[in-house]
């Protein structure tokens, strides 16, 4: 199989969902069952991605496939010569893995929705949107350049917008979709400026070419600081898409969309795209940039976890959990744990979409009830869903034998090693605290939903296990949440093929002086060494391995224990606890008041400003014009009735003067033609005074 075929296949995988989208949009009226085509196309797509995965990993495991073409040609630009903008495809290992994940989950969601969305009046439209989403996501994954990523990035935003607002009759849904799009745009703005800097400096958008030029010492505006800034600015795109603080606010609201959509977009794929982007630009991140990323990620994960603890909406808990886990991944990128970040991205994609689909199953069974306080005891009614939930929850809590354990442990170890090397101990602190909280709130969720007595008897009675098309994806994803797919040894992820063979940390290309010490290479310039980090780092990782293992297990177990203590065995009354810790509780329940803060500052500020400006426009800018018109009118009044007013005024003034001089008041009448003549004489005098060559 040669590489051109791989490129072609990837292009086909890209275009098939788009084709499905167009097909459904245009013909949905005539063929109401057209959504089946969408599903069919996705199944084909999935198989193509499997083929790609297999072909790449078996034949080209250490060779990247590049393909590019000229999109815009500026011709012979003065000074710069021939300038053109290229687009292209880069197929490396993480690409095919991502492709596989995206297509798989997308396919599963397609199938799952068949039942979940049944009876919706815009059923066809739904599948069309899923199609365009898949298309955009694949676009991001296979892009070899920033511009193309940006293009598909925005398209992903669009599809997310369409899907969140799918039930646009609900105001909350329409609001959420708008919020998601605009919040994302804030991040994209930074990313866009970052891209602008890159293009201004390197005249290309292609990663390889950019990296090569950086390693050759070409820096944006010739400064390291700008390189850092560029990295951070591009990362801002990831902040938006991956819902990192301070742009995390849209993701919980995005739960207004259909649950399968949440599973696909807002847990597994789109939100992971931010992390994916960070990984793509990993090589050009300076130490400062990485530190910023790590802090953002660490703080986000902590923030989201604290919020997740108190939420009652099943999907919201999962949403904050997603934010938190994304924070983990971002932190992993920041601390240099490239492999673990990607690994966690994959594992998280499976178990989190599993959780979402599971919650969808629950919601479906409960007739679109999402409040956990209305649930309980469902495990008897929905055993498969329950099982899926348990496995996934264990995975997310990092309990051994699950995939989550492997990846989470790795990235916590990475953060610990990083702290060890650089002294930033806050990051692992966040990491471990989050591990504790994650286990707690996940099992809180499981217990509140599936254990105990049903709190809403009526709904409970109607609940039943979901039909096969909904259960099948759960099963598939549950199996994927187990360790054996990734490594033979359930406690040593680094021994697995995933980390040891498939995914490698790329070398940094930034100038030596801007790297962390542990990332500095011995030789200047491009090195042939396959090792991205110094040995020191390997040592630190090794050192961090065991403490992490122990600590995370301990904390995970503790979290689960607490959950059971409070919610299952009722040893501690949660309400009482909430009452005791009321400020903290409320702070968490209200999501740290971030939304309120934004509402009060940026949103209302902008709206107020816009209102003021519109008044300004109406009264001042236009007013000047109208004022000119007004002045013109005044002048014209003056001259238009020049005769009358000026003359009368003149006469009156003289009358006034004469009265003043004691000459007596005399009623003066203005004869018209004669006043004209007086004026003529008057002006003659004036002219005389002016023009006499005295």
């Amino acid at each position, binding site marked *: 199989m040669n590489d051109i075929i791989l490129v072609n296949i990837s292009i086909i995988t890209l275009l098939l969902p788009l084709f499905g989208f167009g097909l459904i949009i245009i013909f949905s009226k005539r063929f109401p069952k057209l959504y089946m085509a969408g599903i069919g196309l996705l199944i084909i797509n999935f198989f193509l991605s499997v083929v790609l995965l297999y072909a790449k990993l078996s034949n080209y495991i250490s060779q990247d496939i590049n393909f590019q073409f000229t999109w815009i040609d500026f011709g012979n630009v003065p000074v710069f010569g021939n300038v053109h903008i290229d687009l292209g495809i880069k197929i490396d290992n993480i690409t095919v893995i991502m492709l596989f994940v995206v297509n798989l989950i997308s396919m599963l969601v397609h199938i799952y929705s068949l039942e979940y969305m049944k009876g919706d009046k815009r059923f066809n439209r739904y599948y069309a949107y899923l199609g365009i989403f898949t298309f955009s996501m694949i676009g991001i994954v296979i892009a070899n350049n920033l511009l193309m990523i940006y293009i598909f990035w925005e398209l992903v935003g669009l599809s997310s917008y369409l899907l969140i607002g799918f039930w646009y009759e609900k105001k909350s849904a329409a609001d959420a979709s708008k919020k998601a799009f605009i919040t994302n745009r804030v991040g994209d703005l930074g990313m866009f400026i970052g891209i602008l800097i890159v293009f201004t400096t390197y005249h290309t958008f292609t990663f390889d070419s950019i990296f090569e030029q950086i390693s050759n010492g070409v820096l944006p505006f010739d400064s390291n600081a700008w390189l850092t800034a560029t990295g951070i600015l591009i990362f801002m795109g990831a902040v938006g898409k991956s819902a990192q603080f301070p742009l995390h606010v849209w993701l919980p609201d995005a739960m207004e969309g259909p649950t399968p959509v949440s599973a696909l977009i807002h847990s597994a794929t789109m939100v992971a795209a931010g992390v994916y982007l960070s990984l793509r630009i990993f090589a050009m991140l300076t130490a400062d940039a990485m530190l910023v990323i790590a802090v953002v990620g660490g703080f986000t994960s902590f923030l989201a976890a604290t919020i997740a603890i108190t939420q009652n909406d099943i999907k919201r808990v999962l949403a904050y959990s997603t934010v938190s886990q994304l924070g983990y991944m971002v932190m992993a990128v920041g601390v240099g744990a490239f492999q673990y970040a990607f690994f966690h991205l994959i594992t998280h994609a499976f178990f989190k979409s599993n959780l979402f689909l599971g919650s969808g199953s629950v919601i479906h069974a409960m007739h679109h009830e999402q409040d956990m306080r209305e649930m309980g005891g469902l495990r008897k009614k929905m055993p498969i869903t329950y099982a899926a939930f348990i496995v996934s929850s264990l995975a997310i809590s990092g309990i051994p034998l699950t995939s989550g354990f492997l990846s989470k442990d790795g990235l916590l170890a990475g953060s610990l090693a990083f702290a060890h090397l650089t002294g930033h101990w806050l990051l692992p602190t966040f990491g471990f605290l989050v591990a504790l909280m994650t286990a707690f709130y996940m099992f809180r969720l499981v217990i509140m939903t599936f254990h105990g007595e049903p709190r809403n008897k009526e709904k409970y009675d109607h609940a039943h296990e979901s039909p096969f098309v909904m259960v099948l994806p759960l099963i598939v994803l549950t199996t994927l949440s187990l360790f054996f797919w990734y490594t033979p040894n359930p406690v040593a992820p680094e021994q697995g093929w995933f980390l040891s063979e498939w995914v490698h940390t790329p070398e940094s290309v930034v100038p030596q002086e801007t790297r962390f010490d542990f990332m500095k290479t011995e030789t200047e310039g491009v090195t042939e060494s396959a090792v991205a980090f110094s040995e020191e780092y390997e040592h630190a990782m090794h050192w961090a391995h065991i403490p992490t293992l122990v600590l995370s297990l301990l904390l995970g177990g503790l979290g689960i224990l607490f959950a059971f203590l409070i919610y299952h065995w009722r040893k501690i009354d949660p309400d009482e606890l909430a009452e005791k810790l009321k400020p903290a509780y409320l702070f968490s329940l209200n999501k740290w008041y971030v939304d309120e803060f934004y509402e009060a500052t940026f949103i209302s500020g902008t709206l107020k400003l816009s209102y003021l400006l519109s008044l300004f426009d109406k009264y001042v800018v236009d007013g000047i014009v109208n004022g000119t018109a007004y002045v013109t009118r005044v002048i014209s009044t003056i001259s*238009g009735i020049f005769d009358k007013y000026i003359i009368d005024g003149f006469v009156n003034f003289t009358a006034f003067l004469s009265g003043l001089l004691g000459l007596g008041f005399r009623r003066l009448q203005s004869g018209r*033609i004669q006043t004209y003549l007086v004026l003529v004489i008057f002006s003659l005098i004036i002219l*005389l005074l002016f023009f006499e060559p005295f």
Partner: protein
Amino acid sequence: MDFSSLYDSLALIKPEIIISVTLVLIVVLDLIYDKNKKLVPYLALLGLIVSGIYILSDIANEGFAFKMSATSNKFGLLALDSFGSYFKLLIILTSVLIVFFAKHSVEIENTGKRQGEFYTLLFGMILGMMFMVSASDLIMIYVSMELLSFSSYVLAGFIKLRDRNSEASLKYIIFGGVASGVMLFGISLIYGLTGTTNLYSINAALQSGNINLIVLGFSLLLIVAGIGYKISAVPFHFWTPDVYEGAPISITAFLSVASKAAGFAILIRFIKTAFVTNVDGSGNWLLVPVFDWKTLISVFAILTMTLGNFAALWQDNLKRMLAYSSIAHAGYLLLGVVVFSQIGIEAILIYFAIYMLMNLGSFYIVMLIADKTGSEDIHDYSGLGYVTPFLGVSFAVFLVSLTGLPPTAGFIGKLYLFIALIDAKMTTLAVIAVLNSVVSLYYYIRVLKHMFLTKPNGEVKEIKLSTANVVYVIVLLIPVLVLGIYFSPLVNFAESCLAFLSF
């Protein structure tokens, strides 16, 4: 003066003689046919056309007429040159159009038997103007101007028993009498200073120096006041709106074009003949340094166009609005004077030809509407554009042309004026002028707004036009449109008519 030179002189003024003969013939014809006045206009036309033909054929025939080498009057009372011929032609053309204008006018028709007098007086005006434009002696200027004025005083009040007519007439004669008296006083001072009233001799006297500049300035101002009154330049314009509004519309139209043209001709000739020592290679006039002409005329120009335009903004009476507009146009025309160069004069010549077309067109349409609806008020124009689209569209063209927008002839007129200004590097004036034309747009477009945009209060009756009416409008309309796109002939002709008789 011997008889041979008298013959020479008479040969030079054939067009004027024909006009005088026609005048007399009209009187005679009027006496013969007491009841039927149908023939009079045709006789008038005949006289005008023959006169026009003579002007055209004699356009190259230049010379001084009525000169007497023995006395101070050695340059003659008249200087016949192509500049004068151009204006004569313009006057004749305007007169021809006015004859038709009057023929179509209901108010003139209503004067019945007095139509004979109407044409007699009209010819009095024409004759006055014809002599005015080529007069080269201040006394000649004065007398011909009085001939023009006397006839127009009467014509302004020609429609008897209508308040505004007699009022217009009275105002006109008082203002005119004072203005001409003042001018005469100025002339007398010039006579005292230089010992002559002939413009060429004055020039020579001025160049020889030894002139009391203060008195000269004073007398010039007085003379400018007299001429300024004829061209209705601010501040000598006061009579204009009142008289224009009060006079019969055909006379208003005639005054606004022909009388103004004659006034401009004499202003230019006065300055050019009496004060210009030389014309340099690029056509700029070198003036005798006796007076700050440039500033004076600039001030007049600015005041005139600004006041004219601003005052016109508020006028509801169309005739009055057009009166103010004609004041504004006099201001534009003064811009051509102020540059004191051949190109400026050329611009004036071009502008006048165009101004004649568009102004007469506008007045004619106002007349047609007033004759049918009995109103000149702008509010009574509502909806007229729909019931009589021909009138509406033609009026639109004329008004757009008056504004000076392409592709109408008015634009070419303005273009040449601005060309003259910018060539003379008088950008400030140019800016003021263009801003003025923006202001003018407002009141011109206001008419269109009423005709097309405003909803009429009641039902609007269609204005029925005779074929003659339509033909008349079209005759004016076509050149207004064609000259906007292809103006070479006019410009070439104007260019060939820039010659002044020099010493």
